[in-house]
């Protein structure tokens, strides 16, 4: 296990870009929470509040040609990897223009912006680990993983998902194939309402890294610099061909499982152990002179404008029309008469 020193040498430019994604994700999430209360969403809203520092630190290191399999609290990472906020609102509002066309919603969108591929998440936790491994195996078979600066695949998972059998099988396979997989584990202390002591019995989730043949690292998921430094090392090592990497960040989900959940099971003691990564980051950057009050206000203002524009456009777009659907689950429409 390697714990990266907090005092890192992450460039200020990257720290600011990271902060920008955190703020935009928070603004979008807050808007989704409001829309949920207004009964304006097609389903629930699942927020990444409190997990933005880790998520954005994952997405920010990804580049065209990489694969990202986000989970339900990765708005920040999705944005950092190129997702258009318009797709967020289109999907959450169930609009026909969204990439799932109202057939699936909220966090299940799979967005491909150019060569930036985000896999469409299914709700069965752990299932996206082997899918990401498979995408990387595909890249290897296509000859795209040669050299010491290869594409990587990043899969997001939590303390709950790490208990699922699919996660185990996928991690084991990634270790066997020695693929450039980065597993970003957000230990947000809660598998829905279940605490860590009923989710796993090992001392720390990162202990599993060695068992799967991964390099393991940990960081404080509320410390943006630590997240950036740690995820940066993990992604760089994967690109160099050093095999699969696991980062386990300790943090707390600052929302319910979804907005339908009041999270009343979070004890004051648990709540008191974790801060909110976003104000913590703002304070650090301000204290170090990286940004001032005016700069911060500008970031928030820009984020609100981006979010509002995306919401307004998406909400003006058409909803799916059952009469226009062909209600066929197959792409091979000519199976009845042969291929």
């Amino acid at each position, binding site marked *: 296990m390697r714990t990266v020193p907090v005092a890192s040498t992450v460039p200020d430019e990257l720290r600011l870009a990271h902060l920008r994604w955190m703020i935009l994700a928070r603004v979008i999430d807050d808007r989704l929470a409001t829309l949920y209360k207004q009964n304006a969403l097609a389903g629930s809203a699942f927020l990444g509040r409190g997990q933005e520092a880790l998520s954005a630190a994952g997405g920010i290191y990804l580049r065209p040609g990489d*694969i990202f399999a986000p989970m339900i609290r990765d708005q920040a990472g999705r944005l950092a990897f190129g997702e258009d906020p318009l797709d967020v609102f289109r999907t959450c509002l169930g609009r026909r223009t969204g990439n799932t066309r109202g057939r699936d919603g909220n966090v299940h969108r799979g967005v491909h912006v150019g060569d930036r591929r985000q896999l469409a998440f299914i709700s069965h936790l752990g*299932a996206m680990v*082997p*899918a990401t491994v498979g995408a990387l195996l595909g890249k290897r078979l296509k000859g795209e993983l040669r050299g010491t600066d290869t594409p990587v695949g990043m899969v997001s998972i939590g303390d709950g998902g790490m208990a699922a059998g*699919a996660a185990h099988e*996928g991690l084991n*396979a990634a270790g066997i194939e020695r693929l450039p997989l980065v597993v970003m584990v957000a230990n947000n202390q809660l598998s829905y309402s279940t605490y860590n002591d009923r989710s796993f019995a090992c001392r720390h989730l990162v202990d599993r890294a060695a068992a799967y043949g991964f390099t393991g690292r940990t960081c404080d998921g509320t410390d943006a610099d630590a997240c950036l430094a740690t995820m940066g090392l993990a992604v760089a090592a994967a690109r160099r061909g050093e095999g699969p990497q696991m980062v386990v960040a300790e943090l707390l989900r600052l929302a319910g499982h979804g907005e339908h959940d009041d999270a009343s099971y979070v004890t004051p003691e648990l709540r008191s152990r974790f801060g909110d990564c976003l104000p913590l980051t703002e304070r650090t950057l301000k204290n170090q002179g990286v940004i001032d009050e005016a700069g911060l206000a500008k970031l928030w203002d820009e984020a609100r404008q981006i979010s509002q524009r995306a919401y307004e456009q998406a909400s003006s777009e058409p909803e799916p029309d059952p009469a226009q659907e062909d209600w066929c689950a*197959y792409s091979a429409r000519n199976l009845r*008469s042969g291929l």
Partner: protein
Amino acid sequence: MRLQRQEPAERLVKYLEAIRLALGELLEHDPRVFLYGQDIAGTFGGAFKATKGLAERFPTRVLNAPISEDAITGIAIGAAQEGLVPIIEFQFADFASIAFNQLVNHAATMHWRTGQTCPMVARLPVGGTPGGGPFHSQMVEGWLTHHPGLVVVAPSTVADAYFLLKDAATCTDPVVFCEHKYLYYHLAADFDPRRAEHLPMGRAAIRRSGTDCTVVSWSGMVHEALKAAEVLAGEHEIECEVIDLRCLRPLDADTILESVARTGRLVVATESWPFGGVTAEILAVVASEAFQHLDAPPQRLAALDTPIPFHPALFAAHHPDAARIAALVLETVSF
């Protein structure tokens, strides 16, 4: 459509060899294809030897997997998203239950949810053999055909083992390829399967024409249906029309309905369990769409409604055969 045998082969070609032949040609001609499964690589070539010799020819594209049916299937889904055409092998179809989630929730929903295709083939050795017992004998079409988005095929002939596998690998949807373990070594063709007349995937084949009763079956049970038809013709002057479904989902209902319109009678035979499943679907389609043509209640013959027994005597009692098909046809015809 009645299929004729043609192009005599220099030697008998077994059902298993036809699968291996198709796999080899797919690997040779389509660089997107790779094979992934337990024990399929090296000199071993799989539990039933379907891939024997292929790893030597394509060492980087025939890959052994750990005992991880969920991950094997999830990996195929991810690779398909990258433009590959994965062909995965389960050692026994029974173990595909471990991969149930990836098959029905991930692969099957991909196109409808996201608009992206998920071209992959999952090869499942199905069917009972004496001594196989509860966990090495199952038919899986009952639960896999239930889920929209999966194509489910079950070849019963050597030529179909070859052609349906090649069709499956060019299909843009995920295909579950049910290959019958008993037929692997017990069914051989005296013609070159590569040059046989064949139907495209999605169409049922009429293996024997008849006017008195339609007998629908698939996979290994087709051969029991053909045996029953032979006996009924010889001993009772009853001519059965034997339909081999070949593809269970989508279901070629037209061929069944057209046949029932000619014969007025229907028996569906399977070694699957009776509750729900493909037999129930066929009877529902015929009862609702061909009721006016029926001269007798449509019937089905399935395995007994228990787990599959181990002892050969128990297995024989549990497993439908030609005699029981013939008895049910007689009952239907004399209704």
